[in-house]
């Protein structure tokens, strides 16, 4: 299967002092596939996503690696060409819909602007953008087009952002914690909406989250990031049902299960994640790992492909599958 996008050996550093933020990230997505990137704050998941669109914040840069999208390396193409891809072939939904929208522009004009920027020729732009709002379930779309972002609730704003991101039928949608700021019942509505749109459009999706529960029923594969590296990647079933990396296992064990009736002590992972640039040539999880041996502190485990699943651990937990 040809991959739609592949990140190869992507490392991100701070420009001023060369502190490593992510190292050797390899991700690939085939057309129509959805991948979840799960990690805690500081694990590098958002930076990885931003690097794809060339949107890294000032002072942070890609140090090495390649991002191939449809046969082009996004890191070396002409900025004008990247502008063309951004928003059209790859679009993004951010965590906070209020800051993603322009507060002094009507929703209608912001949607039309997308068409305009990409010289997208449609017969009737107004009805095209109206249709996009209907598709994401916004009631009274005519009124919505004339409204400003502050007139919407958080959930409705996120629907607007999703409508905007889907306007030009992108091949890849990157979603960075789009439901984190929303209430659970609204979160469910958004998950349902995105999931429906993805299967209807056969779109690929990269879903970034700290919440394992959200991706469990949404994506095909999951990559777990820790201290700037991917430590485990596999199908969603594998990751949740038989995690092999001690970190993945610890993370899953620490969550109370909503449907369970057990109230035993929650398993916890001692300590806090290290700063990625302070890890060096050892397993970044070694200091918190109950299974760590001498080897884990002396050399760096790399992702090791075992069929469709791979784990960066010298002593992975035996698979039960």
């Amino acid at each position, binding site marked *: 299967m040809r991959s739609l996008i592949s990140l190869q050996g992507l490392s991100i550093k701070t420009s001023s002092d060369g502190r490593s933020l992510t190292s050797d990230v390899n991700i690939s997505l085939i057309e129509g596939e959805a991948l979840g990137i799960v990690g*805690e*704050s500081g694990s590098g998941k958002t930076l990885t996503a931003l690097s794809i669109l060339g949107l890294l914040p000032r002072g942070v840069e890609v140090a090495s690696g390649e991002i191939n999208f449809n046969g082009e390396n996004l890191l070396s193409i002409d900025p004008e060409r990247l502008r063309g891809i951004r928003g059209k072939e790859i679009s993004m939904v951010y965590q906070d819909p209020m800051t993603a929208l322009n507060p002094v522009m009507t929703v209608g004009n912001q949607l039309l602007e997308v068409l305009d920027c990409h010289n997208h020729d449609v017969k009737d732009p107004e009805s095209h953008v109206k249709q996009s709002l209907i598709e994401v379930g916004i009631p009274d779309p005519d009124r919505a087009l004339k409204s400003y972002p502050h007139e919407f*609730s958080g*959930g*409705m704003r996120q629907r607007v952002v999703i409508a905007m991101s889907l306007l030009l039928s992108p091949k890849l949608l990157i979603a960075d914690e789009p439901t984190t700021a929303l*209430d*659970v*019942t*609204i*979160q*469910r*509505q958004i*998950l*349902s909406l995105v*999931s429906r749109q993805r299967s209807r459009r056969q779109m690929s999706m990269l879903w970034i989250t*700290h*919440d*394992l*529960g*959200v991706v*469990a*029923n*949404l994506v095909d594969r999951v990559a777990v990031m820790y201290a700037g590296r991917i430590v485990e990647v596999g199908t*969603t*079933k594998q990751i*949740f*049902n038989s995690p092999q990396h001690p970190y993945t296992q*610890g*993370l*899953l064990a*620490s*969550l*109370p*299960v*909503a*449907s*369970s*009736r057990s*109230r035993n*002590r*929650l*398993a*916890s*992972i*001692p300590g*806090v*994640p290290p700063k990625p640039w302070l890890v060096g040539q050892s397993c970044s999880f070694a200091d918190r790992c109950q299974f760590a041996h001498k080897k884990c502190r002396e050399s760096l485990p790399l992702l090791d492909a075992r069929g469709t699943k791979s784990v960066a651990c010298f002593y992975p937990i035996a698979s039960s599958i």
Partner: protein
Amino acid sequence: MTLVIDNVIKKYPIRQSKSVVNALNGISLNISKGQTLGIVGESGCGKSTLARLIVGLESPTQGAITWRDNVLLRGSKNQWRNHLSPAQLVFQDPYSSLNPRQRIGECIKEVIVAHNLRQKEEIDSRVTELLKVVGMSEDMKNRYPHQLSGGQRQRVSIARALAAEPELLILDEPVSALDVSVRADVMNLLVDLRKEFGLTYLFISHDLSMVRHISDVIAVMYLGRVVELGTWDEVLDNPQHPYTKALIAAIPDHSQVGQMDLTVSLEGEVPSPTNIPLGCAFHVRCPIAVPNCSKMIPQLLPIKSSQSVACSEVVK
């Protein structure tokens, strides 16, 4: 009963638009000593307002909050100070609830001094003891909040609350701002502290799986009212109110990979508290609503000894 909240109403007038935010619309709840009452609800349901009323940061528009048979009214400052000591609030965000320019030791010491709880020479050892209680070492005293991780900061917030020697801890989303792997630690700490000091908790969260984990009794709130109240297992195993059912169905569950469909559990959004629907506030989103629901506000009525529901279609 340690704390009795009796038919409390809280309205916030908005001067500009001459409208009123109806944050609490008649809440009655009791907490007994040593019990943990969990309050769950979505944004705007009034759960944080309730927390602020109990510790006296706000006063109710109507109704009374009784602490050990003493009605609490916003009276003299001293009366509030006496009350503040037995009930302490832990806030959601340890990044903004700690003074960034105050060392950890100072920030805990301040509470002991304000409530005049120790002799001068005992204060320092008390601070050390409190840090130890929340699992932190003495050398943290000289650190500033920015030098600590999120979990450590929340531990400091808890130590600071404990410094006042409270009987009741009000925990307003205490783990929501923390990273997943750290949440379990703080939850375990709260369970331990409850046992060690015989504390009473009011645990407020939007996250039903956390509330489930720690509460004896759960109250489900919707637009300033309690819609369902029962022991934790009753509310989860046998939810009666359609809102409780939808809330439970909406929790992402990682224990059922690929088995859950993502169908929407509840259509629409929570109406604004400035414009609460007539009758049952939930009827506009309710799957089982009948015309009568828009006319009468359903009262919280018992369906068995320990479980009550505010729904006229469930309690007939």
